[in-house]
């Protein structure tokens, strides 16, 4: 059988195969890309289209017979012989559009990016605009992001800040903060035409991860205490006994590196 013989179902199968490669154990994703990449891409070219083209970290486990989404759906919702006990249907309805509380949450994505999502209740919006009175015209909602590294933020004492003029109606945004190992806070609020900022909700502070080794610093040491079982760290019953620093009688030396 050659690629040329592959019909419609076969092409779907090839897509499934591409999924399968990725669906194997996840390790160093870049490496599996190098090993299997060309075959994956060949398979994908022939298979019904996925929505993404970015290089592949692999799925946690095998997803056999993935194939075209429609075929998978049919397959998996195939109902076999009826079984005589109460069953739970798929839930009807959608998740709530909102949860009725003003909230702003920051999630670090990597050393240089934060993800922010928010909800502002209609009541809060109305109240805020009313408070602005004449200034209400020409205001827009913005996300103000503060660098608060080592600071107890009180709304005014950040090292620096910048505004994100997100698209009107957005409820989440990716923010390119650009600084690893930095603490960030944010407020969602209204900024008037004259530049006055009225915060509506504040997020909890988060840190971006570090992206490089720390500079040299004073080295501290600590010694772990043994667990309640007596031997340091490990409760043992079995053939292999770790070397006991106190030299307990009968402890075997099988694992001491020589």
């Amino acid at each position, binding site marked *: 059988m050659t690629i040329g013989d592959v019909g419609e179902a076969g092409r779907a199968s090839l897509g499934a195969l591409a999924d*399968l490669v990725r669906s194997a154990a996840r390790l160093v994703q870049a490496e599996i890309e190098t*090993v299997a990449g060309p075959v994956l891409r060949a398979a994908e070219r022939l298979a019904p289209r996925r929505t993404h083209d970015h290089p592949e970290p692999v799925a946690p486990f095998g997803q056999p017979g993935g194939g075209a989404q429609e075929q998978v759906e049919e397959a998996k919702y195939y109902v076999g012989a009826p079984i005589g006990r109460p069953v739970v249907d798929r839930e009807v309805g959608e998740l709530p559009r909102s949860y009725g509380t003003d909230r702003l*949450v920051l*999630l670090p994505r990597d050393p240089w990016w934060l993800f922010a999502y928010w909800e502002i209740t209609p009541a809060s919006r109305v109240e805020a605009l009313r408070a602005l009175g004449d200034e209400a015209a020409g205001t827009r909602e913005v996300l103000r992001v503060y660098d608060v590294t080592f600071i107890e933020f009180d709304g005014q004492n950040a090292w620096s800040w910048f505004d994100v003029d997100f698209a009107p109606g957005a409820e989440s945004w990716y923010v390119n903060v650009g600084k690893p190992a930095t603490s960030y806070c944010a407020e969602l609020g209204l900024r008037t035409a004259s530049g006055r900022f009225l915060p509506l909700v504040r997020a909890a502070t988060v*840190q971006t991860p570090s992206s490089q080794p720390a500079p040299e610093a004073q080295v501290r040491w600590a010694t772990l205490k043994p667990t309640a079982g007596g031997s*340091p*760290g490990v409760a043992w019953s079995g053939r292999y006994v770790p070397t006991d620093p106190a030299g307990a009688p009968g402890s075997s030396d099988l694992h001491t590196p020589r």
Partner: protein
Amino acid sequence: MGTVAFILHAHLPFVRHPEHEEFLEERWLYEAITETYIPLLEMLDALDRDGVATRLTISFSPTLLAMLGDRLLRGRYLRHLDQLVELAEKEERRTRGDGAFHPLAEMYLARCSRARTVYLDEWQHDLTAAFRSFQERGLIDVITCGATHGFLPLLAAAPAAVRTQIEVAANEYRRFFGRTAEGFWLPECAYQPGLDVELARAGFRWFAVDTHGLTNAAPRPVAGAYAPIVCDSGVAAFARDPDSSKQVWSADEGYPGDCWYRDFYRDIGFDLEYDYIKPYLLPTGERIHTGLKYHRITGRTDQKLPYEPARARERVQAHAAHFVEARQRQVEWLAHSMDRPPIIVCPYDAELFGHWWFEGPQWLELVLRGLAATPGLAATTPGDDLARHPTLQVATPAASSWGWKGYNEVWLAGENDWLYRHLHATGERLHGLCRRYPGADERTRRALTQALRELMLAQASDWAFMMSRGTTVDYAVRRVKDHLLRCQRLCDEVEAGTVDDLRLAALEDTDNLFPALDYRVMV
């Protein structure tokens, strides 16, 4: 002079669909059992019988433990196994006279029959008991991971949710293994400062991070990734060694891509004539992997040649020897700059061995034998290492994960970022309810407990992962929505005092993991 610590992380998301006779995604479990967990047990048995001085760490996620112990899934697995044996028998008959394929058919028949014997006769469906017995015999250290494998840094906006993932994991482990777990496998090795505090609170003593979790730790660890550090909370952290990972996966040096190894794609489910193979496919007739594969990788070509087990075995021996020798050189080089023997931590998904890389368990067994026979090297576990070297440098690991790009992006991207507002809000709401009803009546207790199950099922990082990968997206989205809606509806009913008994019982019957769970763990 140095030790090597293998950590195998065995995990599957909770997939159980009693409402359907057969369900596609349940096959993940059956394949893992047949192709990975049973072969690993066989490996441990061989090492045990030969008295090989070895140790390794195996992590079982609580959802996997739940599925391995579930009666419905055990019965379905046996049915799957019986079908596999039947197919293998037919294949053995069909290929008689074919010099290339008949020995392979015989090999699979022997393997499938052996798997059935191990599963049914030796362990009476209870594979967890098997691993427990190897732990008690001193061969392995079994640890666990987050209750439903939640990606903890992204759940931390609702701190009670993180605490619950960790504490339920500790409880479930104790239920299955009769002792306290020492080690905790952070799902995806995803760490951020503060998580170790929660681990300490639950009694865990160590966890693992990706390499840069330690090399970027603050202050800088003097031993890099080759000795553990201890957090201020008293929990130790071990880092993955990149060299040994690369040895297994790199295009230049990686083992599983060797042209003599079994090819994963050429499965008889796709190759054989339709009417013949149809009884072993999906009920809809869609072709799937059966696990019987007759070809080797051969090279970058579509013309795959028949698999030759003897030649593959030679490659396994060479690769195992290569790995051990590389660790020896690595240890010699590291030892010069270290005050204590280096520990080389080699974590892998368990399912790499056997399912993806057919020869994996053979390789692992030979490596472990090789380490035992090599002066200056030994296999160890992180737990052993802490016992032997209890004095550690104090440092805080860097926020990191072993996912693509090393941080949170895979689980926080356009395809899945919408999840978190729902997970956080629902978690907070349930937490509030749990606190409001500290001594609930029986029905309320059951409802809140089931709501907690539903929340945790929604929190599985697997769903976000699948969405990001673009595979099985609809199923993943469906799962998250269903579980969150079930949780929210149970919360509505508790608040209104209108808990629907019948529906609650049905939910308890379907999403039935963690039978000993009590909602008060979230208080």
